[in-house]
């Protein structure tokens, strides 16, 4: 009996390994031009936006703008160096986060295996700079990124709080100053209810005390509003857009849609 | 070998477990330590075995302070058998007995002899975890036998509490043999019969104090023990003519 259990577990593990291995087959991308590896979903989406998606040969797990069968070579925090080198990239793009760029990637770039480019993508200006530099790097003819919002004459609510959906009785993550959504709000003539910088977790009571004129809950998929937010006596606007949470050049579309949504209500 | 206790007092925090115990024991003697529960028997034995440092007084072995002895030296002179042994690994009984040779160097012969004396030779490859309480107790005694140096001290805390009649007799024979080789054997016991049968001398404790001490025939009487234990005792004689202390 004892050994049958072990045998069963071994067979189960074997089948699992076999199945999981077959679960995802990668598609090798053949390209005569650049061979791009992008480890940032925002940068990948921008590359696709400027028509260079066909040259992406490697991606991060979160880069959903390209074919899911393109090999994953890491993310913002860890890199599969062997896999990356096997793809023979000419250019590697990473997003600058609060930490440092991977030192071994820097070393490989210095050794001439590929050129490494890094951008911050927290603000609209930074995203625009990333977009415009990509045009140059990839020799693409295109206009610099501009966000053009129409003047409608309809005033915006006094203060606006932008946040992700929470769960049950809890609030989601709120967008403070010096984030790209705050920049978009500023462009619309709106005022962010939050005075501090970055992404912030607030309690329901904090939000009640801030007393924004309206709460805009954003997501890239369908969601249910949390009980906590619903309990506040504050108007809520739900905004769903597939690119709202990715800091890419597609925020130009996001900006127009968001302005329309807020003003409509 | 001479064991001498001079004014030995042991405290656990504010509680005094034993106070001002004086005693002297020569080699070749079996001494039974008797007393009601919580009278300090185990404390006294642990102190003699060097496992407890007295708050006052001295335990001396041939003039050397037992509390100050290095672990290896003490192990070569004193062997200890607890009432309940503990082993936190999946050892066999043989391995547990071999541990008695830790300080003295391995000796297959001593281990085999010890196992044979307690009737565990054929069961020595059983796991200690799976052994009965009686087997574990005998394994503890065997370990002490493997460890002991003839002419040393053997200290046992209720060595027959988990044993059947046959093995109680076996242990009695073992202790007599050790004493005949010059050992000082000190054992805490609860059963008068074992004390009567085996002990040359008796020490009786009550409330941490030594109340009676001397030859077993002089100390083990209905009146003296009845006072200590607070029960009525009397002599009864069996068919073989042996006398036993019983409660009428």
């Amino acid at each position, binding site marked *: 009996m*004892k050994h049958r*259990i072990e045998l069963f*577990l071994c067979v189960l*593990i074997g089948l699992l*390994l076999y199945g*999981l*291995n077959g679960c*995802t*087959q*990668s*598609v*090798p991308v053949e390209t005569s031009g650049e061979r791009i590896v992008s480890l940032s979903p925002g940068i990948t989406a921008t590359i696709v936006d400027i028509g260079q998606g066909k040259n992406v040969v490697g991606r991060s*797990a979160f880069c959903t703008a390209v074919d*899911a069968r393109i*090999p*994953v070579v890491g*993310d*913002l*925090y*860890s890199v*599969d*160096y*062997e*896999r990356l*080198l*096997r*793809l023979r990239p000419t250019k590697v793009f990473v997003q600058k*986060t*609060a*930490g*440092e760029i991977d030192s*071994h990637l820097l070393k490989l770039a210095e050794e001439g295996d590929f050129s490494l480019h890094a951008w911050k993508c927290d603000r609209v200006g930074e995203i625009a700079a990333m977009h415009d530099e990509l045009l140059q790097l990839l020799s693409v003819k295109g206009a610099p990124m501009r966000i053009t919002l129409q003047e409608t004459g309809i005033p915006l609510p006094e203060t606006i709080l932008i946040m992700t959906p929470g769960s049950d009785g809890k609030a989601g993550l709120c967008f403070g100053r010096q984030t790209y959504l705050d920049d978009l709000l500023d462009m619309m003539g709106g005022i962010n209810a939050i005075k501090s910088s*970055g*992404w912030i*977790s607030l309690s329901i009571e904090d939000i009640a005390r801030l007393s924004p004129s309206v709460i805009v809950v954003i997501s890239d998929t369908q969601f249910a509003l949390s009980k906590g937010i619903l309990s506040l006596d504050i108007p809520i606007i739900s905004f769903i857009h597939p690119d709202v949470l990715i800091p890419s050049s597609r925020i130009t579309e996001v900006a127009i849609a968001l302005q329309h949504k807020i003003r409509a209500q | 070998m001479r064991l001498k206790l001079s004014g030995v007092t042991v405290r656990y925090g504010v509680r005094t477990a034993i106070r001002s115990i004086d005693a002297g024991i020569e080699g070749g003697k079996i001494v039974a330590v008797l007393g009601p529960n919580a009278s300090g028997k185990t404390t006294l034995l642990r102190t003699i075995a*060097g*496992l407890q440092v007295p708050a006052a007084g001295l335990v001396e072995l041939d003039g050397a302070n037992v509390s100050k002895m*290095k*672990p290896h030296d*003490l*192990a070569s002179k*004193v*062997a*200890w058998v607890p009432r309940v*042994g*503990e*082993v*936190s*690994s999946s*050892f*066999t009984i043989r*391995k*547990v007995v071999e*541990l*008695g040779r*830790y300080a*003295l160097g391995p000796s297959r012969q001593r281990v085999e002899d010890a196992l044979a004396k307690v009737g565990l030779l054929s069961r020595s490859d059983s796991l200690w*975890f799976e052994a009965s309480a009686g087997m574990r107790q005998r394994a*503890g005694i065997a370990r002490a036998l493997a*460890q002991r140096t003839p002419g040393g001290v053997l200290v046992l805390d209720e060595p027959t509490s988990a044993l059947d009649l046959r093995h109680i007799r076996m242990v009695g024979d073992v202790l007599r043999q050790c004493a005949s080789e010059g050992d000082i054997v000190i054992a805490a016991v609860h059963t008068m019969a074992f004390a009567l049968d085996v002990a040359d001398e008796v020490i009786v404790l009550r409330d941490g104090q030594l109340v009676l001490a001397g030859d077993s025939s002089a100390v083990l009487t209905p009146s003296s023990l009845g006072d200590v234990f607070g029960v009525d005792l009397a002599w009864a004689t069996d068919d073989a003519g042996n006398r036993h202390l019983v409660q009428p």
Partner: protein
Amino acid sequence: MKTKNIVLLILLALLLIAAAVFRLMITRDVDGTLSLAMPEDTFLMYRLVPLVSALIVGSALGVSGMGLQVLLRNPLASPWILGLSSGAGLGVMATMYFEHVTGNGVFGGQTLGAMAGALLTLLLVFGLSRRRGGIDPMTMVLVGVVVSVLCGAGIMVFQHLVPMGLRGSFTTWLMGSLPEVESWGRLGILGAIVLIGISLIAWWGPTLDAACLSDDEAKSVGVDLPKVRRRLFVTSSLLAAIGVILAGPIAFVGLIAPHGARLIMRSSHRTLSIGTALVGALLLLAADDIRQVIDLGTGRLPIGIVTSIIGGLVFLVLLLRGKGRI
């Protein structure tokens, strides 16, 4: 050493060699197909470094776990019971925070932060566990849990203070990972320290056996318990600290490897420590082999996930075989 145990150790070593060869040779090409072939020179380092790291970390964590299980008389003891991983994590988070706030790198970076955090935690646990000059095992377990919780709280405070990007970086560290790039000098030094640590524990094997008795029985057979506990604590902690510094807090290896070795070879701790080192290295290397093979479309799994799954299954088997006793 019994012949049977020698044969078992040789078999374990052969399995380890097989796992190492597999690690060197398994290649997942860009189209996802797997093949077995020696890698080109360009890629050799990316296989050798994690392979050597797995040997060092796996054996260190395994033997550390064994030492702590004897020290604490607790079959569920592992290197993390002393709050080591939380302490190292706190060091890493604190380093990230100060680098972020000052805008400058901290000398030694996260490695030094992990080391400092781990060692300070161990000093704290050691200091608070001492009773009448010696370590009290029960107190040490409780103190370890408390220190672990406190370090965890400290980690959460720093996580609250740092930007989102750094939180993700820390979460990645928490899952554990074998380095793919490391200086051979550093690996050599850490490997040598681990080898010395394991050799010491193997040398003390008979003393560890005797320390498995109760306190009174151990003392009575001649064990200097305070000294033995100090030595075990220092050596086991150092081995675990090296594991954390090199690979972060990898789960289960330190807990499972000693039990796995005991299941294979019922023997004294001298032989068992060698067996445990081999089993620990094998466990970690096998986990690394498995993660080369599995691709869920999100890249390779963090090694901590694989060791947790394997560890959980192995533990289940051990419990079923031992009828509830390990």
